[in-house]
């Protein structure tokens, strides 16, 4: 069963969603659809793994990437 996850643009960076999707490409088929306010990711074909666990882990990865990218951007602003 496919898991549909909405990442609000005011909270998650679209580049972070792309980076996480690339990192999870081996574990699931991920389709990304950008909208005006959000980026929607649909995860399917997770193999033997639990779909919800993969979806939760994917969310953590996107959040981690978002925080890392924002911190890098802040550092570049200071420099």
């Amino acid at each position, binding site marked *: 069963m496919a898991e549909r*996850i909405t990442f609000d643009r005011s*909270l998650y960076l679209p580049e972070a969603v792309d980076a996480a999707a690339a990192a999870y490409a081996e574990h699931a088929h991920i389709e990304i659809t950008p909208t005006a306010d959000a980026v929607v990711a649909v995860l399917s074909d997770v193999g033997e793994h639990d779909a919800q666990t993969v979806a939760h882990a994917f*969310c*953590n990865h996107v*959040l981690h990437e978002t*925080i890392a990218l*924002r911190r890098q951007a802040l550092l570049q602003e200071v420099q």
Partner: protein
Amino acid sequence: MPEQDSTSQSRLGFELGAGHISFDVDESVYPLEAVYGACYLFLDQCFVYLSRPRSGVVTVRLTARGSAAPAELDALAGEFANELLSQATRLRLSQATMRIREYYTAAALRAAASAPSVDDLLAELESEELLEDPLEIMVPWEEKHGAAEGESEPKKDPK
């Protein structure tokens, strides 16, 4: 994120669901940077998902990595809330002291840039005329003040 199931209120007042707990964060009280800071620390403990139900509000949803009792989820959310407060305080302090920290850093860098090198100090030592003795430290006492009084006048017999 995934499905929304029925929720109830936890002991600390959070929304408790099956294996997850969620609560709203007011951005006017806790800046988004503080929310990110707290999330970053909890990423290895649980699954974290953020959503925005309305402007100025962030919903934080924490899902246990394994099975967790409601009391454990409540404790997890309570710890998150404490960390959120800590992060917000650190952020405010950091912003309040930013100018003075910049000033001290600039002053330290200026001082380091203007400090003389070892070669400069050696050259300065060599240029000094060490043989000058304006305070006459090298002059013996006898030459300065003549013979000591005790040696020139014989002691009187107290009898």
